[in-house]
């Protein structure tokens, strides 16, 4: 259950790099990346980038000084969504 395994690892309190997640789950980083994208399409996780707040401050003066504004490589990360959290809670209840 590869996708469920990724979701479970994401619910742990430790922040992981994609390579670490791959190592822990026993898959290649490419397989993990593909799985995470699938989970995101299904709405269980979401991709966010540092400096994303620039999108909400309407290009004002402070956006000029946002840490990653205008850079080609922001720091992307994957987070559990409400749907993902609910799914895992339901799963835990069922397992009990």
């Amino acid at each position, binding site marked *: *259950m*590869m*996708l*469920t395994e990724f979701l479970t*690892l*994401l*619910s*742990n*309190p*430790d*922040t*992981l*790099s*994609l*390579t670490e*997640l791959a190592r822990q789950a026993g*898959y290649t980083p*490419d*397989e993990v*990346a*593909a*799985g*995470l*994208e*699938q989970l995101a*399409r*299904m709405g269980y996780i979401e991709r*966010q980038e*540092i*400096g*994303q*707040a*620039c999108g*909400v*401050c309407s290009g004002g*003066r*402070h*956006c*000029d*000084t*946002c*840490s*990653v*504004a*205008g*850079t*080609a*490589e922001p*720091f*992307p*990360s*994957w*987070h*559990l969504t*409400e*749907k993902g*959290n609910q*799914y895992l809670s*339901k799963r835990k209840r*069922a397992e009990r």
Partner: protein
Amino acid sequence: MDKVRIALIGNPNVGKSTVFNALTGSNQQTGNWAGKTVERRSGLAHKEGLVIELVDLPGTYSFTAYSQEEVITRDYILRDKPDAVLAIVDAANIERNLYLVLQLLEMTSKVVIGLNMLDLARSTGVDIKAHELSRILRVPVVEIVAAKGQGLDKLLQAAVKVGHSDALKSLSIPYPPELEEKIQRMEEVLKNTGLAKRYPLRWLAIKRLEQDPEIGQEWEVRAVVPVQAHADACCSTGNAVSYDLKSTEDLPGDVLLSELAQAGWGQEEMEMAFADAKYQYINQILPVFKSQVHSGLNLTEKLDQWVLSPIWGYPILTGIVFLAFWVSFILSAPLGDLVSQGMSGLAELVVGVMQGLSIPEVWQSLVRDGMFAGVGAVLAFVPQIAIFFVLYYFLQDSGYLARAAFLGDRFMQMLGLHGKSFFSLISSYGCNVPGIMATRTLEDPKDRLVTILINPLIPCVPRLGVMSAVTAAFFPGGQGALVLVSLLTISILLVMFSALFLRRAVGQTERSAFVMELPLYHLPTWRNILQLAWVRTYSFLKRAWTFILAASVIVWVLSSFPQGVPMNESWAGTMGSWLEGIGRPLGFDWRIMVAIVFGFTAKETTLSTLGILYGVAANASQSIARAMTTAMTGLGAYTFLVVYMLYIPCLATVVTTYKESGSLRWTAFGVAYNLLLSFAVGWLVVQGGHLLGLH
């Protein structure tokens, strides 16, 4: 058959449109799909007297109903039934691409796979055995390089051949037994319905189990009559199915679905189980057709073994930050002096011209002691700030800053802060305003509030710029770099302490983490770095001749009136004398207290205010750095830096705190907390310094 209709599908950016353009040339028609805003492209190709119509379907990742593109692509394949489907697959990302192919194979067996970008995959040591993939999936697989037009003739030939042939026995993905049993039960329910004649039964059963919303819509419109005709056959399965379909709830299979839901197989569980099974299957078959040349660890992996190590990562991070500050101090020191001298010379020149024109003394003083002293004090630090930005973007462009952020979050885990809080804090190193706005991604109001309140303790780039400028004045070279590293450490420790304290205050308990994608290390592009550094430096400069100029005039008025009195008896001096009592335990004179108050409007104003109050432009040999070192001891400067780093960040941040928290009470608490904390820590620094015999 004199005409063959071939559909092209694929994930976005796999080269599908390149294949379409190469095969159709200028024989293309574009428009929109009926009732949709998605572009429809079709074109004609001619081969051996045969007319081939190619339809370029929208790029999509799956055939569920998450987007218009997915629905269009799926409907075209199922309803319009093209003679063959060309699935373009990116060989370098085959794990992702095969998910779509597996879904396609559940809908039709008349498929040809175009294995694109194999050259790119091979350059990274990945090889795909097309014949093995073809054997497993039971469809032709043709190697192509779309960008060079290689293999396209063969691809089209294979598609035409499949188009002319009868439907082959399609691949049946081996689902786990628990899913197979459910598919079979659903197939039993659906097999005699009208839709089963139009769509592949297995696919229909899976979609019904997943409770695909588009399937529901489909049945409401089309299934009433044919299904009625088979009511008896259906009901003999024991399911009480109503065929008088008016809503999705009445679809055949509802009884089975509710039975499964009661057993813990709701819609989400089904959807996840089928997606999981497909990925599991992909992982099973991958080793058969994909091989990777292992050449040991690559550079990024080798470096990350050290850089991300829980033991070595933090000393390396400290070393890199130290080095960055040290380099910026060494390079900027002579440039800063040049700017100071230039500004003083220019002030004298302008004042000389004003004297020649007999302009009154008060206006000359405004220009020299207000405008030039204030703006000049800020401009003297521009080289320092510009070099700081260059180093900052160098670290970011090289891929290291992402690692620093990753290490920082590990540190924050000890506080139990929400993973998304960390993102807000990192954004605050750029500017606290977007940093506080970034808390909008936190769902829990308590998480949000804690993050908003600790946010101002992170020094933003303008604050760091002024801090590094003041540090450079007092602590040259390596000593200055050490001072700045210690200041950042104090800031991080206080963020940790405050998070622990505030989490208790608001009753926040949980933490959730995240997975971070770390970029590969690479040599930074100087053009990119210099461009970004210039944008930030220019933004700083722009403020110097707009906001800072206006603030300088105000400070000059306050420090020059009433006229004819010494500066310490001016309005600014009077204000300073009220505040002197607060600053005295920390060794701050009235000038520094006034500068701290003015710094509340914008951090750079602190420098311009000090420039005016220390009378920088009145004496050409006097730079702001020299004026400050004469007025303050090293311990006093360090205390000033601590207080400056921690007290209320700026007016814009306070306003944003109010807007985002929606609470005047918490905003006031935040302001009071920052003020008290900054002066308390400043006092501790002074006392600690005295204990160590420092002055």
